[in-house]
């Protein structure tokens, strides 16, 4: 046993002593992974079962916080908004992103210019995005007023002050900021497809749209999965945009879960509700994440 170990050590200089530097260097990562990410998550989940209000208090009350959470109308609206925003943003991001990428992939002129124009909003913060669109959608000065002053007096387009459609007003801004990124990822995916596939399809007389739907898109599975994960995590994180554009209004019509959690924790001294809300958000992410991780990493290990 000792001889084997000794030879192993001479063959591969990665001995315990030498790797100490790497271990010391990895301490920040280990601390972040264990203390902040794991520890923090477990702490929040555990304290979501307590009666914490202004300060965290380890007085366990079972599922009371969750019952209160799900009976609160503000949380209900927040979840409903997240679902509407999520579905729309998923569909529109994928469709717009793919169509734009496919158009840019036609060996067109000014490709770089178009790409720069479509991607620059992604460099801007959600706060900037929200404030610009708040201004453009302003009923007294923005699109509504311009159309009315052109002669269509009864024209009405005021999403930010209409409880029914406020979430779509936020969606317009969200898509403006994020579709460029999706387009870029899709374009990278399209460029990764072998030119011969296109040639073969052309030789076989398959029309371009059919080639896209039946050959190219299935081949881009990995890209689609990645974009899906990115869009999904963006949906759950949606917060700044709402704060900047509507502050959750009119009334509570554009609340989202992330905002509910922030408000409960830092504004209304209701930590328990914040913890319960964030645990629900975590659950939502895990539902998406676990199958994805299983597919990605499970597959990767087999390679």
């Amino acid at each position, binding site marked *: 046993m000792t001889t084997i170990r000794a030879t192993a050590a001479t063959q591969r200089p990665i001995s315990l002593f*030498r*790797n100490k*530097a*790497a*271990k010391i*260097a*990895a301490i*920040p*990562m*280990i601390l*972040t*992974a*264990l*203390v*902040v*990410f794991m520890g*923090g998550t477990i702490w*929040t989940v555990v304290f979501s079962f307590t009666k914490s209000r202004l300060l965290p208090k380890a007085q366990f009350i079972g599922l009371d916080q969750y019952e209160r959470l799900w009976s609160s109308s503000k949380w209900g609206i927040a979840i409903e908004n997240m679902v509407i925003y999520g579905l729309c943003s998923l569909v529109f991001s994928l469709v717009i992103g793919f169509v734009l990428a496919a*158009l840019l992939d036609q060996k*067109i002129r*000014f490709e770089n*210019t*178009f790409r720069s*124009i*479509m*991607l*620059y*909003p992604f*460099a*801007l*913060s959600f*706060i*900037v995005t929200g*404030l*610009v669109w708040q*201004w453009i959608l*302003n009923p007294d*000065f*923005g699109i509504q007023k*311009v159309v009315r002053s052109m002669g269509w007096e009864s024209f009405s387009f005021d999403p930010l002050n209409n409880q029914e459609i406020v979430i779509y007003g936020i969606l317009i801004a969200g898509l403006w900021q994020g579709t460029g*990124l999706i387009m*870029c990822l899709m374009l990278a*995916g399209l460029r990764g497809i072998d030119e011969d596939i296109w040639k073969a399809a052309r030789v076989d007389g398959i029309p371009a749209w059919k080639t896209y739907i039946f050959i190219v898109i299935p081949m881009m599975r990995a890209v689609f999965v990645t*974009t899906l*994960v*990115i869009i999904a*995590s963006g949906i759950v*994180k949606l917060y*700044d945009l709402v*704060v900047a554009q509507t502050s959750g209004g009119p009334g509570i019509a554009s609340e989202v879960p*992330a905002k509910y*959690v*922030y408000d409960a*924790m830092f504004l209304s001294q209701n930590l328990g509700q*914040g913890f319960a809300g*964030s645990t629900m*958000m*975590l659950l939502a992410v895990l539902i998406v*994440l676990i199958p994805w*991780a299983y597919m990605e990493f499970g597959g990767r290990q087999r390679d």
Partner: protein
Amino acid sequence: MTEVTTLDTRLAASPGMVDGPRGAKPKRAISPRNVFIYGTLLLFSVYYLLPLYVMIVTSLKGMPEIRLGNIFAPPVEITFEPWVKAWATACTGLNCEGLSRGFWNSVQITVPSVVLSIAIASVNGYALANWRFKGADVFFTILIFGAFIPYQVMLYPIVILLRELGIYGTLWGLILVHTIFGMPILTLLFRNYFTTVPQELFKAARVDGAGFWGIYFKIMLPMSLPIFVVAIIIQITGIWNDFLFGVVYTKPDVYPMTVQLNNIVNSVQGVKEYNVNMAATIITGLVPLFIYFVSGKLFVRGIAAGAVKG
């Protein structure tokens, strides 16, 4: 003489070319297919460019012109007063110092955060790629999972952590938070890059007696400057644009620019000055826009590397 006239006609024709990139030879260019492609792209370009245009135009108008006119109309009388006011005297409800304070706070937050997070993550990535030790993959997996956990879950535990460390509400607290949350994506970026560095190079250096830090500083660092630039781009834009951490982990006098911008524009007191608001909004967006337009392809590479490989 003839040359001059051709030049003139060319100049006269050029504005039309600018707003419709239909190529030099109209015969070939105007096919239904091209009309569809460029038409759709132009339509979307309008959607993407409109807010930037409206921001700039509004910020250069006076308030009377805004009240009477059309938000899409170019300014009749250009004034830079809104910009000056947004920078120096706009009110947030707490103070009237404009965005300048937020700007300097953001600089003080962004610079150390970028340096610290990249230094730590590059060493992490290097250790994971070239000096694998037992259990390293477990920590790395947790780290990557952590990137997907909603921040809200970790907000309060970090408040407690920072309070224990005595840096809650200070710039350093926020810098630490940015370093922590930048770690997953950057570590992944560096790890993936360092694994592509030829192993022979690494082994040769080892034979020559170079250690962990020696190889890092003498071989890996000089070889991987592009990936460092990509990391810098990701971090500057990400940290500059952050709002949530700024509002949670700092106090009003050290608020970053995004938080201050939101407070200026959405403050309920006083008459709304839309031109000042838009000037403030542009000023806040200038830094990431500058990074974006200067870095060009590297920016795209950065998001592609960060996203696709993940």
